[in-house]
């Protein structure tokens, strides 16, 4: 190693130091500590603090409320990611042909994505109002969207899809613009209809970006908290209580820091497993291609 290289190495570490220090404190340390916390009985208001081993996890294994939260999280994640992908691609296709008013079109689309999820929750709470809500007025119905156990989860999914489909749309749109027009024209010259062109030319080219969008959206959906916490608080009858909401209740409403942390660790493990599986899947596909 030349002196110059050595100096560059030292300089590099020096430049990285502040970032590593901050992330060490706010990410790495809490990320490790939560594992330890989840092995403790810790109820700060009563001054309880003792080792519990894996007893929280054992309890969770037989806890119907936990399994209900797992199920709700799975349904929420699967349905909102699927809808976001389909609607996002449709929006991207519509935008790709847009010649005039593109800035306005993007403004209308991105606004939903850029505003706080708490605002989205308030917007939809008002739309879902049983007596004065716009949705019931338009449908000519009197449905109790957030109070009916059968409707609450779909209502939360709808609000989440509204908020996040712009993300998928923008990614897909950028990819669509990069597809050479000749490809699509060639397919049409060969007699392929619009549907066939989309299926055999456009969609395969969108695959990779949609896989990435699906990864990001799945991770976010598994971690989602704001939208259900503010819109329904997990109710009615626990039908919208996801793992994150259950963890929060354990932590800051039952004030069981150890137990709540154990539920948080489950979310953590779930997110990391999904991320790992996706990355493996993507790289396996690439090495085949």
């Amino acid at each position, binding site marked *: 190693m030349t002196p110059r290289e050595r100096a560059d190495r030292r300089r590099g570490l020096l430049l*990285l130091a502040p970032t590593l220090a901050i992330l060490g404190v706010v990410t790495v340390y809490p990320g490790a500590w939560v594992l330890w916390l989840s092995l403790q009985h810790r109820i700060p208001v009563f001054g309880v603090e003792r080792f519990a081993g894996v007893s929280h996890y054992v309890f969770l294994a037989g806890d119907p409320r936990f399994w209900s939260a797992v199920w709700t999280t799975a349904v929420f994640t699967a349905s909102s990611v699927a809808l976001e992908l389909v609607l996002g691609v449709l929006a991207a296709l519509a935008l790709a042909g847009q010649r005039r008013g593109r800035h306005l079109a993007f403004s209308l689309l991105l606004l939903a994505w850029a505003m706080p999820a708490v605002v*989205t929750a308030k917007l939809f709470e008002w739309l879902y109002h049983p007596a004065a809500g716009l949705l019931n007025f338009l449908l000519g119905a009197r449905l109790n969207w957030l109070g009916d156990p059968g409707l609450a989860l779909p209502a939360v999914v709808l609000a989440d899809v509204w908020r996040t489909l712009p993300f998928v749309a923008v990614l897909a749109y950028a990819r669509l613009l990069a597809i050479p027009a000749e490809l699509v024209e060639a397919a049409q010259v060969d007699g392929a209809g619009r549907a066939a062109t989309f299926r055999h030319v456009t969609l395969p080219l969108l695959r990779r970006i949609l896989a990435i969008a699906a990864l990001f959206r799945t991770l976010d959906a598994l971690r989602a908290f704001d939208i259900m916490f503010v819109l329904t608080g997990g109710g009615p009858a626990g039908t919208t209580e996801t793992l994150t909401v259950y963890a929060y209740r354990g932590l800051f409403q039952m004030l069981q820091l150890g137990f709540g942390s154990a539920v948080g660790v489950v979310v953590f493990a779930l997110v990391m497993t999904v991320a790992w599986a996706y990355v493996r899947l993507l790289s396996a596909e690439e090495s085949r291609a």
Partner: protein
Amino acid sequence: MRRAGLARDALVLVALTAYAAPFFWQLLTSIKPEADLLRLPPLLPARLTLAHYRAVLEQSLMPQALGNSLGVAAATTLLALGAGLPAAYAIARLPVPGRRALLLALVASTAFPQIATVSPLYLLLRALRLRDTWTALVLAHASFALPLTVWLLAGFIHEIPRALEESAAVDGASRAQALRSVLLPLLAPGLASAGLLAFLSSWNEFLFAYTFTASEASRTVPVALALFPGVFEVPWGDIAAASMLASLPPLLIVVALQRALVRGLLAGAVKE
């Protein structure tokens, strides 16, 4: 042909306006007189009022919350850019040991669920006597804003040809001068994109803000909105007005700084 194109463009705009209807409906609600709120039809009220905005600005804690959110989001952005730019430069340009592992750790840390780190952070901030302060929120928000910023900026720096800095150095400029006069101007759009995303992520964040704040000394806009008080009934008009105020910075960014926003959004996803 042209006619058909125009009609198609108009149709897409109409569809997108319908998509954005929940926002416009809330906007309309925020200027409806109290008496018309719970009556539907009519869709459009006979007269409009600013009473809800007056109530929110004069009688609620929203003005303090707006100040807190602006302060926290601005400080988070400065911290993310201030610490993140040197780190991104080191990753993109210098022979740092363990570079790949470092990048992987950065990406992984953006996937950390807040619900898992919220309890240790709560204990940590309480032990440091930082509860209910801006500092607590800025530190907590750095946990997602900083890795994102480093990741984006490293990508942007990587795209700028190294030869540009080297030729400036050949011309006798010191490395610091070359960075300032060559790299920084080329990186300006990237800095803007990363900064905007950091700002938005902090402005919108709810879980940490809800947990680490206790009073109007540090409560941010999403928290104030979630806790918006109603005495006997839900004040829908006031909530609508407060929602509009909470959406103002995101709205401005989407309309005025759209290009930088979309660039950042794409850069974060496409360079995996």
